[in-house]
């Protein structure tokens, strides 16, 4: 009887925590929504999303420059990261010896675990001056604190993250699938091209999507090198001001200006919604990875 009782107590408390975790997501979403809602009383949704005028003191809250900055810096980073990730993970999963793969994985895990402020710090030291020099060489005036610097730092940050997932995905494809091409006399690369990549396509897309989500919400590393000027950038050498940086830089002083906090909350809400959609996509892509019926 006592054993049964314990079991039931354990069951009930497990349920409780389970419900808490599920409620947490809802709570965060609703909390942000509730806090962001007042902004729509003075600013229309289209103005909020597509107006470029950002004058908190005059109650003008156009998030457009920040949204464009976020998208631009993320896309730029992914553009640079994707080829590197694809080739590096194919090498690790398909060509490397087990020893080399294991060591590389360790290194990549370490890279993925380095805190983002450290990436930002190294970015200030290396990438910002580098961009300035490149800009000068090309005859563009730039301080180096720019969209390009943000994209580069972000690319370096997400590369290990994407590689770690991609290698997992590639290793999950059973060896015999490769054998069926190799046994026909296909080269290793042909096997990768016609069999492995096709089998892994969904999982690799998921890895990239997760990387995109990670980059989209990354705050500190980008904030430190991107320049933070509230204006939609027109070239990659212009400074930019992504949404996470906007929130991080201004949250301390919001209380003094009415509706400012609501504007920042709507920025957070946009971030969360976009990232949640991406996570959702990746979740379904990865959860169907097991079946090979295609």
């Amino acid at each position, binding site marked *: 009887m006592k054993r*049964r009782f314990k079991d039931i107590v354990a069951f009930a408390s497990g349920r409780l925590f*389970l419900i808490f975790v599920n409620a947490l997501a809802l709570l965060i979403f609703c909390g*942000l929504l509730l806090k962001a809602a007042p902004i729509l009383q003075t600013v229309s949704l289209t103005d909020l999303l597509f107006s470029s005028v950002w004058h908190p003191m005059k109650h003008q809250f156009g998030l457009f420059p920040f949204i464009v900055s976020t998208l631009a810096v993320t896309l730029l980073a992914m553009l640079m990261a994707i080829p590197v990730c694809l080739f590096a993970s194919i090498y690790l999963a398909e060509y490397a010896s087990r020893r080399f793969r294991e060591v590389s994985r360790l290194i990549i895990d370490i*890279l993925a675990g380095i805190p983002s402020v450290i990436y930002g710090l190294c970015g200030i*030291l290396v990438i910002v001056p580098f961009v300035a020099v490149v800009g000068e060489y090309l005859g563009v005036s730039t301080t180096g604190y720019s969209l390009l610097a943000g994209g580069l730092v972000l690319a370096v940050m997400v590369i290990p993250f994407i590689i770690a997932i991609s290698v997992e995905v590639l290793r999950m494809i059973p060896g015999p699938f490769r054998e069926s091409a190799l046994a026909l006399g296909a080269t290793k*690369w042909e096997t990768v091209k016609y069999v492995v990549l096709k089998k892994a396509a969904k999982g690799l897309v998921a890895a990239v999507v997760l990387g995109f989500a990670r980059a989209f919400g990354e705050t500190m590393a980008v904030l430190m090198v991107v320049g933070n000027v509230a204006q939609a950038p027109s070239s990659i050498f212009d400074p930019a001001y992504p949404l996470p940086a906007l929130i*991080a830089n201004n949250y301390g002083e919001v209380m003094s200006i009415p509706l400012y906090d609501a504007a920042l909350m709507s920025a957070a809400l946009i*971030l969360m919604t976009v990232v949640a959609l991406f996570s959702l996509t990746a979740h379904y892509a990865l959860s169907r990875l097991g079946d090979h019926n295609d």
Partner: protein
Amino acid sequence: MNRRKLEENFFKFLMALSLGLVFLALAGIILIVLIKGLSSLSWSMIFETPKGGYYLGGEGGIANAIVGSLYLVAGATVLALIISLPVALALQKEYLGKRFADITRLVLDILWGTPSIVYGAFGFVVMVWLGLRASLLGGIIVLTLLMIPIMTRAMDEAVRLVPYELKEMAYAMGTTRFETTLAVVLRQAFPGVCTGVILAVGRGIGDAASILFTAGYTDEIPRSLFDPVASLPLAVFFQSGTPVPEVQARAFTAALILLVIVLVINIVARLLGWRFSKNIVR
């Protein structure tokens, strides 16, 4: 034939190049942090709190940030563990229908991906609502939220890898679900559970965006849960933003200390996983 070989070699070259870039990045980061960080590393950096004029290049150290980070992460780890472990265990199919389990895993994935700045903003809203200032408690709560999905997902993976036959053996002896969980599942999944905890600690200790407005920053070591608290990532961030070169150099020292802590955590995780996997039934 020649064309096929050529294609293979071309792509192999691209692969080597990509991998080389990745390793170069790591080597670069570690070297930079090491060289720049060592130049102003000293005992007083580690064991002293900032003295007057520290931020203008004066005496003192960042003991406040080191201790603060440890406090924050210790508190958050305990809280997150208390919540995550039961959730991971409750996700077993004996306890939970497939639908609810699937939904929970989806929710965990979404929480896992949620940017830390969003946790920070949400945490701040909650703190305002509770009437809390930026404080150790606030930082711990937000870090807990950030760490829960990381821990739970890793633990869930480990728990799911326990072969059902193993549990069946226990059930066949007439144990309850709870006893089976304690005697078989937890034991078998232990390395995975450890990895989960350590993964989360690594993420938690390095995160700056979530504690930016919830933990605050101070030169003192906090005396109660309601005092504001400094932290290593924010020490890096704030010091790198000052115009004084000595202080900027100290940002690298703070980064070095943070990096060493993260690396040690990483290595301990691996050693633990290796040490504890000896008693595992495969």
